[in-house]
């Protein structure tokens, strides 16, 4: 029981970061990025290859995260340009379809070139007892990094000028512009950040369980579920939803089984939309 909850919290922190990465793009750019998970898998492949070519793990991970961030940046500067010319619903719809296209291209390429590639980072060391539960060093390290990242994100969005500028654009694009915030620059920044976040999450996931090459779509869907439950565009909501869903995931795969778990997560998203479309902390009623 305690083990399942602890596992759930570790997982939930990762889910939370995953959700934040997707939700800031939606809140800021009005873009639903369905190539999100595919970006992560590219990062995983880069990490895996650079480690095999003898790079130290830290450097390889950094390289992977930078790659994912680079893809986010590139997407924002190329294929999403026409998307920003639309407003409201048309913008979200076009972004959704174009990023499905990008996801297909990335996944298709990866499965074609590296069909059996798997990223698995193994962190040595003996299990550590926490609350009487032996925890693997890998998952401890992963949660430490996640906590740090979460803290840094909160600090960034609460206390720095840039972070506040980002939140102001999410709240009101025109208003922010009037206050001298450039939405385009902010968008570029956020897309890069979003790529880095998903890259980081995938690296951490690989410390506890291997990430296969075909994981892209699953990661995207997971992020989408977290984002929907937390409320599209809400950073706080994504964090909280991630934690809750992580615990639910761990408990239900411990007691019920993994296929029902997926259905429970999907049902959570569906019921959130039906009962409270704005999610946990959504802006609109």
């Amino acid at each position: 029981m305690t083990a399942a909850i602890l596992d759930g919290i570790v997982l939930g922190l990762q889910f939370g970061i995953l959700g934040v990465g997707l939700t800031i793009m939606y809140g800021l750019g009005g873009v639903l990025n369905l190539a999100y998970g595919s970006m992560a898998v590219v990062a995983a492949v880069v990490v895996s290859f650079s480690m095999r070519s003898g790079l130290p793990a830290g450097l390889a991970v950094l390289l992977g995260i930078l790659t994912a961030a680079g893809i986010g940046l590139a997407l924002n500067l190329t294929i999403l340009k026409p998307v920003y010319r639309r407003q409201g619903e048309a913008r979200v719809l076009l972004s959704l379809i174009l990023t499905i296209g990008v996801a297909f291209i990335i996944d298709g390429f990866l499965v074609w070139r590296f069909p059996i590639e798997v990223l698995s980072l193994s962190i040595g060391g003996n299990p550590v007892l926490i609350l009487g539960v032996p925890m693997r060093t890998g998952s401890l390290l992963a949660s430490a990094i996640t906590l740090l990242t979460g803290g840094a994100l909160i600090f960034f969005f609460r206390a720095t000028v840039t972070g506040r500028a980002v939140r102001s654009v999410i709240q009101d694009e025109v208003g922010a512009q009037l206050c001298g915030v450039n939405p385009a620059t902010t968008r570029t920044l956020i897309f890069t950040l979003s790529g880095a976040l998903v890259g980081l999450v995938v690296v951490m996931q690989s410390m506890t369980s291997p990430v296969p090459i075909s994981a892209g779509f699953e990661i995207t869907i997971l992020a989408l579920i977290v984002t929907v439950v937390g409320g599209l565009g809400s950073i706080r909501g994504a964090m909280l939803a991630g934690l809750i869903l992580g615990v639910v995931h761990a408990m239900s795969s411990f007691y019920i089984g993994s296929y029902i778990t997926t259905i429970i997560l999907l049902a959570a998203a569906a019921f959130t939309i039906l009962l409270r479309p704005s999610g946990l902390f959504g802006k609109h009623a």
Partner: protein
Amino acid sequence: MTTEDVNSVSGTSGVLRGRRKDRRVSNLVALTSIAVAGIVLALLPIWIGDSRSHMSVAISGLLFVCYAIAFNLIFGSTGQLFLAVGALAGVGAYASAIISDRLGVPFPLAMMLATGLSMLIGGGFSWIAVRRSLDIIFTGIVTLVFSLAFDNILLGQRDLTGGETGLVVEAGSDTFLRQQIPPYYVFLGLVLIYLVGYVLLHSSHIGWAFRALRDDRMAAELTGIDVSRYRIYAGVIGGGMLGLAGALWAHVEGFISPATFTFIHVDVPVLLMVVFGGLGMLMGPVIGSAFFTYMGEVLAAFSHLRLIGEGTMLIVLFLLLPKGILGALRSGASGLRRRRQTSKR
């Protein structure tokens, strides 16, 4: 005298009479194009009828035409983004197979029951979307979630569905549905029925409502059109079309598996086909499906690049040709006509 002047002089009744005539003409055009497509498709087995593999490709092409017509009705006519095309067809296929094989119900009856189930689910989506006033994105997410959950249930309920390995469908195995050419004509018949149904639907009062609510939902609502009712109609009819096509496929093919109905294998290609042909246009689904089925065969040697190709097409189509081939042709033609008129004047 410009056209507007003519209209204002002749008054509204003249305009209405003109419109009605336009409608009759456009119905005639629609039915003619269905007939032409029907004849061309009916002649196809003359060339490829002796090859079993070609026939099965042609049949699956027709299956996708059915999917695409249903999607065109739901998304093109009423703006509801259903990302559960494969799942709704899968509901029909699995329900029909299980009802007929497990319960011993004759398979035509099982197909009808399965179609009813899909209608219920399709209508249910629309009802929920209307009741909770979900916008296009949320409707998309809810239906996408349904298709993923459906896929998981198929994989999980091994005893009933055979899980990942799939399900052999016994019912229908001793009929003409398992021969080489007859099922092609059965599917062709289904396509023609769907197309004629589409035309009839769009020339009835339902079609007027569809157009009104597609053009401007708010205005449609203000003129007294019950938007929710017509959306639910589209959901029910479209869901039924998908379920019936899926059920028929199950009995023709004799084998179904979850992979046949996933989002990636059905919904994305159907979206491509409909947008390629022309969203909201009668023959769009036929042209789109024919093109992609043919290309799939021509490029069979490069099937490992299929995903990359589909992704690229998706991006190129939505950026460069958002109205599809037919839309581009039509606006090209009307542009030409306008230019000719101005030069005459």
